[in-house]
């Protein structure tokens, strides 16, 4: 269980806070989507939830961040890494750049934890298997496609065995094939019991994947509820969020007195 309680955050060198009074919990095994316009604070929320802000980049945090009931204030960063992993947009800058094979890349985290070699190997194999990329083990990380590289990044985080994973627009820089690869992997991850907090513009990707969705607007949570309710909320447009295709299409049909159920059979097929 990861919890933000009354959290505000201000970047170092900036006058005003970017997040205000955030209350958000991520229960074990839960999958929560975060949506909002550009500059609404989504990425900042990811950094705060994973301890990187202020842990690595500084700045001022108010309120508390708890993981499994423990107040994480002042804890060293490596303690976060086994509790909450964070992935970003660009796979290229997340790969360490110092390993010669995917296997070594995924093993880097467990190795950093000082684990015995046998366990490092075991965790690495398990993480690759969970994402279905065992066949990439011997490949050179820099020669992977964007989608494959992003899967390797997620596997590297999984090998740390965190109970929570925060992903900040994991498909933003991927082509349709890469997006499909990562989307499928996220569905598979959901089944392993890892709690996921996914920041995304692509509501089509969140639709059917998340149980809950949180909407950010100007650094505040303006909506938090079951995915189906939030995605159908007519205020999404005002918050700068594009509803999923099936919702928009359903609305267009309803406006012309057509039955939105016409599209039901096509979505998800």
């Amino acid at each position: 269980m990861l919890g933000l309680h009354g959290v505000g955050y201000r970047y170092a060198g900036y006058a005003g806070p970017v997040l205000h009074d955030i209350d958000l919990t991520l229960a074990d095994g839960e999958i929560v989507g975060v949506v909002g316009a550009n500059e609404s604070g989504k990425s900042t929320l990811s950094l705060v939830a994973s301890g990187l802000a202020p842990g690595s980049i500084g700045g001022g945090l108010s309120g508390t961040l708890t993981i499994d009931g423990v107040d994480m204030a002042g804890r060293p960063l490596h303690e976060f890494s086994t509790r909450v992993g964070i992935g970003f947009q660009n796979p290229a800058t997340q790969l360490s750049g110092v390993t010669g094979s995917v296997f070594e890349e995924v093993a880097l985290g467990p190795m950093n934890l000082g684990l015995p070699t046998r366990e490092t190997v075991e965790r690495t194999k398990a993480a690759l298997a969970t994402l279905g990329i065992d066949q990439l083990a011997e490949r050179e990380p820099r020669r992977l496609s964007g989608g494959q590289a992003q899967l390797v990044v997620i596997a590297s985080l999984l090998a740390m065995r965190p109970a929570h994973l925060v992903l900040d627009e994991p498909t933003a820089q991927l082509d349709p094939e890469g997006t499909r690869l990562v989307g499928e992997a996220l569905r598979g991850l959901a089944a392993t019991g890892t709690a996921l907090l996914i920041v995304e513009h692509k509501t089509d990707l969140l639709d059917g994947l998340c149980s809950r969705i949180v909407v950010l607007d100007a650094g505040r949570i303006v909506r938090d509820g079951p995915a189906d309710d939030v995605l159908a909320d007519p205020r999404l447009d005002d918050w700068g969020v594009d509803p999923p295709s099936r919702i928009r299409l359903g609305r267009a049909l309803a406006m012309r007195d057509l039955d939105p159920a016409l599209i039901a059979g096509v979505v998800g097929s």
Partner: protein
Amino acid sequence: MTHLALEGVGFVYPDGTRALSEVDLTVTPGEVVAIVGQNGSGKSTLVRQLDGLLRPTEGRVLHDGVDIAGIRVAALAAKVGIVFQNPDRQIFAGRVRTEVEFGPRILGRSANEAAEAATAALAAVGLTELADANPYDLGFSRRKLLTLASVLAMGTQVVVLDEPTTGQDARGVARIQRVVEAIATAGRTVIAISHDMRFVAETFTRVVVMGAGRVLLDGSPADVFAESAWPTLASTYLEPPLAARVGARLGLGPTPTEVSLVEALVEARG
């Protein structure tokens, strides 16, 4: 008005990788063309042929019937402006306005003309209020809009956009749609690479599908997203927009956009 033509263009990188084969493409002034296809299908290599950043290893590229081989990139840039994918590979100035004025200045416009062009371009992308900000204080999506403004200010007859909607929210995408429409209305040409099929179907009148360095399909959104084209799309991992799939399922024929789907439904109901 610049008329672009690629005739039998092939391209092989110095390391021997073939990126383009036998590409024939003509784009007339005022057209808005989307180029789609998975990464590595040759889209980026193709647009780099248009202003001479890469020169064809086979075939030729013509501007208004003139082969551009031997014409310097700096001269071609006055006709074809390219907005690249990653803003951080381009932005260098400490002030938004300076960044946007750079293009027109280097093309030889006077300081006044450049300032005017910059003001108009910043207004078009909605960054007027940030004209004096430091580009690196802006978020990713605004830095991307800034690079779009920088090329708009050059006033080129052809504007090429590489993945313009990456990282943009609904408002950003709508803004880019308006910019594309405005350029076309002025009789200028837009060529955009995009992975976003809904954006493509709703914004462009012509779609070129690339796969393995070749043009697989070239037609209107209704043509390339029609059911008969789906196997070709699937070969380069593309999925037609939801509206097109619904239209096909309901036997309504090609309905690439939500508007065309609803129209077809209303018509079918009589």
